[in-house]
């Protein structure tokens, strides 16, 4: 059982927002759609919600086997939390959450007492019981986001869609809400797709991460898979700090030029040469503020600059001085051909 999209293509003018995208979200799963702005994340979310429609005839949107490709938004029973919340400004928090229940057709509309009961339960779930009578303009950004989430959950959605749920919040609130969302998902287990451009957020919260680039899914997998085994240079580059070196051509084997990528924490620094893949480098600058120390180095043979992350202990042991020459060992090197530029 799953929510699934197949072969979705969507163009805005000449710009292809989505190019033959297929994605399957298993029941109860939390998937993050990660990608830079303009990669088509939000468009995919809106197509699943029924706010946009795919261009191509072969496209399909399936909710647990039911084909909803042509169904209008109000017939789909999806939950959507908008980036800027889109709370109804003329309704208080309680009525915002109750909205989806009140607009049901007469025959399926719950009784007033039931609506009351369900809204109160949701208010409790999002920890906003005390704010039921406030208007959206009277509560904070983080609270608005939780109201938006409760409102989306009130209709018991078949899939919950979150568009940059924490995008407009400050860093501290973001972190709190992130953990809260993870916890909430554990409790209610609703099939969820959430869009973000923040790789840290995606890797921390999601069961699986789908990386979108230029309207195509570049890679999909668990956070560990994606981080440790990036399928493409783009994914590797997008998921965090990375050093790049022009890769040495191995005995004429490679016909195209390629680039080697190494994460800053995958580089060992030592005063003595050790191992095979050692290089000589000169220390340019060091910065030991915070939990890790950052070292800026320069390769002696090619002059390429790179950064290294050391733990505080390693840094204290080594005490590198600017201008000093050291040996570095690169681990977990990933080599990708230069077929495109980033």
């Amino acid at each position, binding site marked *: 059982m799953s929510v699934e999209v197949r072969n979705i293509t969507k163009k805005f003018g000449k710009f292809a927002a989505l190019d033959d995208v297929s994605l399957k979200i298993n029941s109860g799963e939390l998937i993050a759609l990660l990608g830079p702005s303009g990669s088509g994340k939000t468009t995919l979310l809106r197509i699943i*919600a*029924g*706010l946009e429609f795919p261009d191509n005839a072969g496209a399909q949107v399936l909710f647990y086997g039911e084909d909803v490709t042509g169904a*209008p*938004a*109000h*017939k*789909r*029973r*999806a*939950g*959507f939390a*908008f980036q*800027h919340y*889109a*709370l*109804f*400004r*003329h309704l208080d928090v309680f009525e915002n959450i109750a*909205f*989806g229940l009140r*607009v*049901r057709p007469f025959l399926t509309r719950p009784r007033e007492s039931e609506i009351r009961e369900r809204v109160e339960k949701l208010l409790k779930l999002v920890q906003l019981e005390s704010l039921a009578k406030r208007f959206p*303009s009277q509560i904070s*950004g983080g609270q608005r986001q939780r109201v938006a989430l409760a*409102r*989306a959950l*009130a*209709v018991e959605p078949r899939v919950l869609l979150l568009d940059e749920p924490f*995008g*407009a*919040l*400050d860093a501290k609130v973001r972190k709190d809400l992130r953990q809260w969302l993870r916890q909430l998902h554990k409790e209610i287990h609703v099939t969820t797709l959430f869009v973000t451009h923040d790789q840290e957020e995606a890797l921390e919260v999601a069961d699986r991460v789908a990386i979108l680039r230029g309207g195509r899914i570049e890679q999909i997998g668990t956070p560990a898979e994606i981080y440790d085994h990036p399928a493409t240079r783009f994914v590797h580059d997008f998921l965090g700090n990375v050093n790049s070196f022009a890769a040495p051509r191995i005995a004429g084997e490679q016909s195209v030029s390629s680039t080697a990528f190494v994460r800053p924490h995958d580089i060992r620094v030592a005063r003595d040469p050790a191992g095979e893949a050692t290089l000589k480098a000169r220390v340019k600058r060091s910065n030991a503020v915070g939990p890790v120390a950052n070292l800026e180095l320069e390769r002696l043979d090619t002059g390429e600059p790179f950064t290294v992350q050391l733990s505080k202990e390693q840094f204290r042991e080594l005490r590198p001085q600017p201008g000093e020459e050291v040996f570095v060992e690169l681990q977990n090197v990933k080599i990708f051909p230069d077929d495109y530029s980033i």
Partner: protein
Amino acid sequence: MQAPSTFHAPRRVRRCGPTTEPLFVRWLLIAAALVFLGLFLVVPLIAVFAGAFAKGVGHYFHTLADPMTVSAIKLTLLTAAIVVPLNCVFGVVAAWAIAKFDFPFKNILTTLIDLPFAVSPVIAGLIYVLVFGAQGWFGPWLIAHNIRIIFAVPGIVLATLFVTFPFVARELIPLMQAQGRTEEEAARVLGASGWQTFWRVTLPNIKWGLLYGVILCNARAMGEFGAVSVVSGHIQGVTDTMPLHIEVLYQGYDSAGAFAVASLLAFLALVTIALKAWVEGKGAALHPPEEKISA
């Protein structure tokens, strides 16, 4: 002030902030504005009421009770009663379409809505004479079927409808554009039909702007002279509205009578302004500017 002992700035200048003019300049500007307002707005308003009662209270009420005056008042109220609801609906529909949907030639439609503001009301009246008049396009057909539009009430309603068309739409378009589409989208995803979305989300969000537009539309509908004058034919007791009746009285050397009727329109204007101020206050209180959230 680092060195007050060596630099003696004139006291008055030093008190002024960087964006404040000296006291006498401020007073001069305020006085000029007040004199202007007094001369061109307050004095004429007083003159209207003074003129109305120039021949005594008896003449005032005699004029108002005159069957011709009563007929003019009735026709004006009837016109407003037809025109305002129609333009209210047209305005909301046009604003809704323009603000919430994308379609070809949207800019042309937006510009067309302003047309009645751009052309002289006399021309607005003439348009209808040319279309529906005896010599006009549909004239012979209308005469053959015994339908009277020009020099009759339908013509007055049409002309007024044209002139007052932009008020509601103009008021709502920027408001609806500023509010965006996301609340409607949220309502749709939550299961609301298009109709429910309009009544439960769109309308509550625009109600104060709508009321404001309706008030202005009503004021103009009752006060319109030029367009109505062309199509009315000035048949006393039949096609005279209040503004036209004022002209008739005035040209019949009954200036006290003319002012008496004019005082009714002036009173309406005052009520409109008061209502407008109240609505503006209400709208501002209910829609405080959304807090900016740093991204």
